[in-house]
C-alpha cells in the first residue's frame, strides 16, 4: 500500500493545504470549462434542454470510481483509509430534496457558485451571500433540528454493503447506468431541439 499518501505519513498538514489548493485549481478550471460558471447552462438540465450537468457529473463519477477501484485492486490504495461520509439516509433524502429545490431557484450549487463568482456573475455572488446567511441560520436553528439531522443513521455504508453485492458488480452496474444515461440524454436533447425549432418554448 502506498496511498493515500497523507494518511500514511508521506507529508504533513501544511503540504496537504498546498495540495488542496492545487487540486481545487483543477476542479475549478474544468467546472468553468464545462460551462458551470453559468446558471443558465446549469439549470437547462432541469428543463431537459442541455443535459451537461448529468454528463459531466457522471463522467467524473465513473472516472474517479474506476480509478479508485483499479488502484485498490492493484494494492496501491487502501480504500479503508479514504474518508467515507457516514450515511444518515433520512436526513440525506430530505437534504437532497431541499438542495434540489434550491438549485433550480438559485441557479447554482455551492461549488459552481464559486466558479460563477470568479467569472463575474453577480447572481452567483448574491447566491454565495445567501448560502453564507443560510449556514448561519442553520447553525442557530440546529439545536431544534437535531432530531431530523440524525435521522436514518447507518454509519459509513457503501452500496455494495447495502445490496450485499460484490463491489465489482456494483461498479459495472454504475458504468452501464452512465452509458445508457449518456445515450438517453443525447436522445432527449435532440428530440427537444427539434420540437423547439418548430414551436419555441
Amino acid at each position: 500500500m502506498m496511498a493515500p499518501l497523507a494518511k500514511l505519513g508521506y507529508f504533513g498538514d501544511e503540504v496537504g493545504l498546498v495540495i488542496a489548493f492545487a487540486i481545487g485549481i483543477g476542479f475549478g478550471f474544468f467546472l468553468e470549462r464545462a460551462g458551470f460558471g453559468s446558471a443558465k447552462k446549469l439549470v437547462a438540465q432541469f428543463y431537459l434542454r442541455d443535459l451537461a450537468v448529468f454528463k459531466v457529473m457522471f463522467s467524473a463519477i465513473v472516472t474517479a470510481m474506476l480509478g479508485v477501484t483499479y488502484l485498490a485492486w492493484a494494492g496501491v490504495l487502501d480504500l479503508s483509509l479514504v474518508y467515507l461520509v457516514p450515511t444518515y439516509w433520512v436526513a440525506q433524502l430530505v437534504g437532497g430534496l431541499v438542495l434540489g429545490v434550491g438549485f433550480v431557484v438559485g441557479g447554482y450549487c455551492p461549488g459552481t457558485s464559486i466558479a460563477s463568482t470568479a467569472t463575474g456573475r453577480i447572481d452567483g455572488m448574491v447566491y454565495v451571500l445567501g448560502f453564507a446567511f443560510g449556514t448561519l441560520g442553520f447553525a442557530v436553528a440546529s439545536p431544534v433540528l437535531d432530531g431530523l439531522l440524525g435521522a436514518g443513521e447507518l454509519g459509513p455504508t457503501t452500496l455494495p454493503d447495502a445490496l450485499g453485492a460484490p463491489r465489482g458488480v456494483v461498479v459495472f452496474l454504475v458504468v452501464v447506468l452512465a452509458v445508457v444515461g449518456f445515450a438517453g440524454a443525447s436522445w432527449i436533447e435532440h428530440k427537444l431541439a427539434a420540437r423547439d425549432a418548430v414551436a419555441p418554448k
Partner: protein
Amino acid sequence: MELPASPKHPPQPYMNPYLAGIGIGVALLAAFVLVGRGLGASGAFNSTIAWLVSSVAPDYAHGNRFLAGYLDGDHPLKSWLVFEVAGVFAGALLSGLLAHRAALVVERGPRISVAGRLVLAFIGGVLMAFGAAFARGCTSGQALTGGSLLNLGSWVFMLSVFGGAYAVAWLVRRQWR
C-alpha cells in the same frame, strides 16, 4: 491579465462535457490518492461561518454543536476545504479569462427583472445551505465524491437532488426561459 470578450475575441464555446467530466474525475482521484478525501464546497462555507461567529461570539460558537465541529484543533480557515475552494476560485477565473467568458453580468431568462433574479439567487442560496447541512455535503462533497466511492447516503442524496429540482422546475420556469 484581463481578457474580456470583444468583437475580436468572442466567448469561446464550452468544452465537451465528457472531457470536462474526466478532468474533474482526475482531480477527484488525485485527492483520494494524495490525501484520502474528496472534493467539497459547502464545508468551506461552514468553516468560514464558524470562524466569523467565533471571532464575534466565541462562547456561543463553542457551545453550538454545528459550529463547534469546525472549531476543534487548528485555525478554522486552515482546513482542506477552505484551501480547495480558494483553488476552485483561481482555476475557474483562469479558465474564464482564457476563454473570454469572464464578465460582470446577471444570468437570467428574458422574462424576469434583475432584482427578481437576485432575490431568487439569495433564496436559493439559503435553501441550499439548509439542504447541504442536513445532507452533510453538497453536489461536490456528496454527489461527486460519495458517488464515486459508492457511498449509500450519497446515492440517496443524488437521486433526491434531481427529484427536488425536477419537481419545482416548472414553477420557476419564468426565471429562466
